[in-house]
């Protein structure tokens, strides 16, 4: 008996198709995802509290799909705006990056009480992910504003790095 016939007799094709059917049915009743989806662009955001400036140090374009449902972070203090090669704003995101570094230690190695501590104004960094959808065209430049005061903290060309072979 051929493998195809064995497969048909086993009923496995039906079982393999079932998820597709299930997905189609369930998908019809699911709420539409709110996030904007696209290739994940993982940016390194730098904030320098001494000079009150911010920049994007690197932006890695990956093939990983990202549906961004975190565009408006609670407690955001920065707004990152991305523009395409025509200078049009194609995405923006409100994020929080602590401008301070708090260094601290406990009273002893086994103590649970805090002892020495200090607030430093060294630059701080974090990763911010953006979805690059086909409809956006490309990301070319950025502007970083304070939020909600809109003071400009930095702007420039996005230093893009492609991670996967296209």
């Amino acid at each position, binding site marked *: 008996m051929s493998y195809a016939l064995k497969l048909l007799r086993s009923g496995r094709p039906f079982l393999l198709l079932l998820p597709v059917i299930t997905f189609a049915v369930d998908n019809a009743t699911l709420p539409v995802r709110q996030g904007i989806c696209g290739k994940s662009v993982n940016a390194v955001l730098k904030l320098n509290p001494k000079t009150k400036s911010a920049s994007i140090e690197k932006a890695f374009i990956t093939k990983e799909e990202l549906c961004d449902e975190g565009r408006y972070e609670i407690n955001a203090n920065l707004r990152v705006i991305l523009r395409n090669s025509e200078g049009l704003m194609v995405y923006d995101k409100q994020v929080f990056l602590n401008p301070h570094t708090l260094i601290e230690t406990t009273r002893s190695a086994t103590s649970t009480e805090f002892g020495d501590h200090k607030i430093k104004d060294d630059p701080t960094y974090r990763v911010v992910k953006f979805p690059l959808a086909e409809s956006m065209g490309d990301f070319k430049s950025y502007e970083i504003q304070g939020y*909600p005061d809109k003071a400009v903290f930095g702007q420039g060309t996005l230093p893009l790095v492609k991670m996967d072979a296209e």
Partner: protein
Amino acid sequence: MLRHSLLTLLFLVVTSFPVFAYKMTIYTDQTSKAKAEQVKQLFKTTYPFNQYNIDFEIVSATAAELNCAPDPAITRLVVCNSTHVTTDSAARGSDQAFIVRDLAQYGGSGGGVPVITTQSDPRMMLHEYLHTLGLSDEYEYSASEAPRFCTSTTRSPNLTVITPLASYASDAIARTTHSSAIPWYARIAGTTLITNSTNLGTGNVNSTTAAPNTGNAPLALSRAIGLYKGKTCRNLPATGSGPAAASWHPGGEPTIMEFLSGGLGGPTEQIVAGIYDSRGVTKRVAATTPPPPMPVTVTDGARDDSKGAIINVINNTGSSSSIGR
């Protein structure tokens, strides 16, 4: 055969729905990676982090890559330059980098990248990560740091600095006067007073520390979310004859932001969950009892119907943290 088919079916159904996990990457130069593993386990068992889709990754790094050194002023304090780890974590698709540095000192730092040393309690990492999310310390600041931190514009999700009036004719007047300075104001029920007698404050933060919560449900609130006077700004120099500026918190119990032995406490759990929700971190699908509905007013957000619930949004417009605060 049937079992194989069912497993295939289950696999295909599960993978049909995209799940966007939040990825935490812990960099360490400790050969055994033991402390990093403890940190990972702590997050995996601590509410509300244990309710979210979080992938963990432990990555070996050299001491040079971690780039940590004693602070020039207080050598017991260790500070790291996190450029390398943040760049590496972005390249590997991580959302948050952590550093566990193999050093004899104990302590850590929080801001962009949370850092602890291998001699530190792993709970120190939880404390530092809460700084990264924007939360403030709740322990008593020294006379040198308190004036820097405790300013009239200091606002964070778990702390605000307010100079009270000499007295309040009513709770309504206190609310009108200070609501915009309280980031968690939307979480304070209308029946909870933010004054006691004619003074500001639901009460003082008491001495019974909130217990760590390793369960799957939020802590029951032992005291209602309100406005509790804390210790952080006690060492501010005296000014004038009126009440001094003080730190105020949403909860009446000391939390991990004051003592490492403490848990997040009910109010901070809710705040952290709200931050995670606003960052789009998805919840794990688990057979848990849903938390009771919160008396929260949406003030500057919108319904997110994809989550089937109102997003907990704290209105901090006009009083939110800003750079250089």
